[in-house]
């Protein structure tokens, strides 16, 4: 007969505020198998844990049930105290009477108390059937993959590489750098973005431990912490990168014109192009969709021979190429190449994109002088379409009056309900850069709230006000086009209590930060989920901000939510140290909560083989009969096989049929 100890936590007022703890304790005391029931203000504190340990040491109990908060954060803590007390740590069960009881039923104290009793009874019933289990250890592949080569991904990769681990840095664009490479200067210190970023890009490109996989995307991920098997698709560049020197001769020769993504569509690039002058690696790629196949030089065909000269007729790009990197006679697989990587941990740092202006019809997006803040960033940048000259798009004139509109697509139920967090500061920064260079410019920022929380940010804001940048509280209701390329901005000035209008030469929309395209799909491949806003969900907002529910996968930067550069870098470095822990240990503990087949009774029908999402089960021959066999390293303990087995001979340890039936029965009482 098991001797179960029940421990009920008050969680300060969190539980005790809704649940009558003493009533639950008295109830628990009388449950079958329970030899003692105690309560304490904070069970997870040292004295709380000590209660459990002492009762075990005194030989009073051999099973432990804690009714407290969520096992997500606290199960490991209590398992440890059970182990320290001298019991197998799996002889422990937790009832969540906070998240699933006191919080949602806060205003129904009687109901919350009744529910707490049921949850405790259910946990006690399961505890009677608990069995000791042994942890498994898996060897860790001492390498890591970082997805996304922006500032967060690069720092995560560099940290791991500097610790001595092999890092595969996967970036979907031809170059690393990410959005930060597009910025002119960066708040709050106004460092030139290129000046601080390009050296990092070079470090990443030359680090002996980093293998750059640019123009590549993650195709599939299998396995678990310690041993992920990743397939990465290297997209077809149609250029031999081993030979390409990045000289740009082919680019100059190409006659095709394609809107330039790097300059936010404000000028054109060629069909064969180098993403930007400071690209790492500096290599050309052919955008095959826009390639004109000059001289009928379709990829993979032999050139025609000139009837008079006898020379082959080449396309301008290959003619210009001195190294033979651009050779259109070569057969290229349009699907690119699949590379298989084995890594122990993965960091996702896929960044963000800013919203386009098109959906905001009220702001005359058809006007070339209504631009996004990212477009202004490119106009201000020395590497941008105007080479840093402050010209507006319609006529190249220097704008005299500029209106910034904040929260475009942010704090807006039609698009994104969240605050994009960085817009207030980047609007101030862009306004400041302009005002410092051209003090006569009239700059108006229309805002809802100025949010400048961050080290040195408020000082930055004050400095901008001192420069004479005008701040108006009130969301702009309309931007109308006027003759002469002028724009009329209409708003209600809340501080004045009056409608206002302004004639501007340039209107800048601070459009929302949103998840990078394809993030949700990548999340599915990795088994991690996005929140309602589309950003990846961390394990715990406060305590485990870079961890995900999938062990061994970590997140950093704007993939998790809008962030500025200092925050992205901090998070990246936090993620890299978290991701280094399993690599350093060399082996990781895997919970023994996995499935096992009773081979003697298995009929070999193969139902489980088909259903296993982790491909962990196969049929093996045993004495002339096929039987299912589960690979312990691959099994994730999801329980699908155990539920589906027609013969009922698969056991999911920690969730056996007997345990679950007992729980259900207790709940039904």
């Amino acid at each position, binding site marked *: 007969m098991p001797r179960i100890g029940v421990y009920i936590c008050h969680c300060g007022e969190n539980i005790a505020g809704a649940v009558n703890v003493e009533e639950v304790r008295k109830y628990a005391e009388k449950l079958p198998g329970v030899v003692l029931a105690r309560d304490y203000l904070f069970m997870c504190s040292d004295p709380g844990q000590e209660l459990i340990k002492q009762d075990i040491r005194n030989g009073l109990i051999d099973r432990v049930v804690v009714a407290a908060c969520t096992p997500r954060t606290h199960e490991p803590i209590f398992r440890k105290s059970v182990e320290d007390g001298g019991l197998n740590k799996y002889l422990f069960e937790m009832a969540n009477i906070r998240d699933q009881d006191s919080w949602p039923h806060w205003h129904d104290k009687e109901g919350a108390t009744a529910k707490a009793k049921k949850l405790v009874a259910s946990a006690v019933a399961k505890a009677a059937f608990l069995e000791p289990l042994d942890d498994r250890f898996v060897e860790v592949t001492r390498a890591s993959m970082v997805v996304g080569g922006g500032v967060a991904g690069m720092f995560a990769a560099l940290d791991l590489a500097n610790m001595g681990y092999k890092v595969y840095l996967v970036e979907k664009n031809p170059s690393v750098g990410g959005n930060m490479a597009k910025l002119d200067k960066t708040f709050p210190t106004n460092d030139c973005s290129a000046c601080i970023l390009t050296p990092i890009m070079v470090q990443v490109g030359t680090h002996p431990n980093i293998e750059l996989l640019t123009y590549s995307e993650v195709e599939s991920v299998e396995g678990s912490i310690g041993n992920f098997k990743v397939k990465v698709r290297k997209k077809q560049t149609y250029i031999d990168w081993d030979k390409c020197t990045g000289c740009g001769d082919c680019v100059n020769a190409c006659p095709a014109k394609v809107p330039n993504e790097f300059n936010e569509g404000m000028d054109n690039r060629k069909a064969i192009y180098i993403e930007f002058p400071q690209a790492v690696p500096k290599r050309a790629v052919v955008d095959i969709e826009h390639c004109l196949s000059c001289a009928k030089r379709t990829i993979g065909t032999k050139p025609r021979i000139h009837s008079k000269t006898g020379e082959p007729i080449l396309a301008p790009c290959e003619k210009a190429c001195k190294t033979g990197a651009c050779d259109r006679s070569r057969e290229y697989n349009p699907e690119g190449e699949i590379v298989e990587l084995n890594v122990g941990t993965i960091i996702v740092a896929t960044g963000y994109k800013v919203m386009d202006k098109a959906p905001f019809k009220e702001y005359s997006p058809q006007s070339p002088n209504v631009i996004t803040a990212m477009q202004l960033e490119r106009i201000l940048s020395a590497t941008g379409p105007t080479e840093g000259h402050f010209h507006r798009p319609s006529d190249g004139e220097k704008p005299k*009056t500029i209106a910034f509109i904040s929260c475009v697509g942010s704090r807006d139920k039609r698009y994104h309900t969240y605050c994009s967090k960085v817009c207030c500061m980047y609007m101030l920064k862009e306004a400041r850069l302009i005002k410092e260079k051209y003090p006569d410019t009239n700059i108006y920022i229309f805002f809802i709230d100025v949010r400048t929380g961050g080290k040195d940010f408020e000082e930055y804001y*004050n400095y901008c006000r001192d420069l*004479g940048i005008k*701040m108006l509280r009130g969301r702009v209701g309309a931007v109308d086009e006027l003759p002469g390329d002028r724009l009329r901005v209409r708003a209600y*000035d809340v*501080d004045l*209590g*009056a409608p206002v*209008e*302004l004639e501007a030469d340039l209107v800048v929309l601070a459009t929302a930060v949103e998840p990078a395209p394809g993030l949700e799909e990548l999340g599915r491949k990795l088994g991690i989920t996005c929140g309602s806003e589309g950003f990846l969900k961390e394990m715990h907002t406060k305590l485990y901000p870079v961890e995900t529910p999938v062990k061994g996968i970590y997140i950093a930067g704007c993939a998790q939510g809008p962030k500025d550069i200092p925050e992205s870098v901090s998070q990246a470095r936090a993620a890299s140290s978290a991701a280094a822990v399993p690599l350093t240990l060399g082996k990781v503990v895997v919970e023994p909560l996995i499935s096992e087949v009773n081979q003697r009774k298995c009929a070999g029908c193969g139902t489980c083989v088909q259903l296993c999402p982790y491909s962990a089960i196969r049929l093996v021959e045993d004495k002339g009969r096929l039987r299912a066999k589960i690979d312990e390293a691959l099994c994730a303990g999801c329980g699908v096989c155990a539920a589906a087995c027609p013969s009922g001979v698969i056991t999911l340890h920690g969730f056996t049929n007997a345990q679950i039936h007992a729980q259900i029965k207790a709940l039904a009482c």
Partner: protein
Amino acid sequence: MSNVQVATGVINLSEGDPGLVNEIKELGGEELLECIQCAKCAAACPMVLAGFSFFNKRVIHAILLGLRDALLDDSSIWACQSCNRCTEVCPREVNPFEIIQAMRRVAIREFALPTLSIEGLKSLYDTGHAVYLAGAGSTRAKVGLPDKPPSTVANLEALKELQAIIRQTALADLGIIPMGESDVTETCEV
């Protein structure tokens, strides 16, 4: 916050006077740009309770936007009671009272001041009191007080000194009120 609208029409920001900020700074409102429109001053201001459209916070905001005409077309700034509570409570050390004073200086330079203010200034010059009730003498006598209070009203020398001082101010250049020495009357009755 007062819901009184400052103007009936739309305010055109493009017509704002970019020079107004510097003018105010030169005339005593040095800390103007420190204001972040938190409205703590407005919460302490009797003008808000009385329903004036331009009170400390709004005056500052209008100045920052260069709305000279809107401010001059309105008489609110003259309603400030100089209680100085705004200056006491301001967390940004903006000194809103001084900014209203500076705005009054701007207004006076453009002769944009209400008739009542002219009368008050004239009374100040003539008697040393912005508000002085000449007919109060008999009431004073009833309670056993001298006919005139012991101020410039009863002290011709002091009044002359005061007038000399006023003649040294910008008021004399503007010629809003007559300031002849000969104008000093023996009785100072107004």
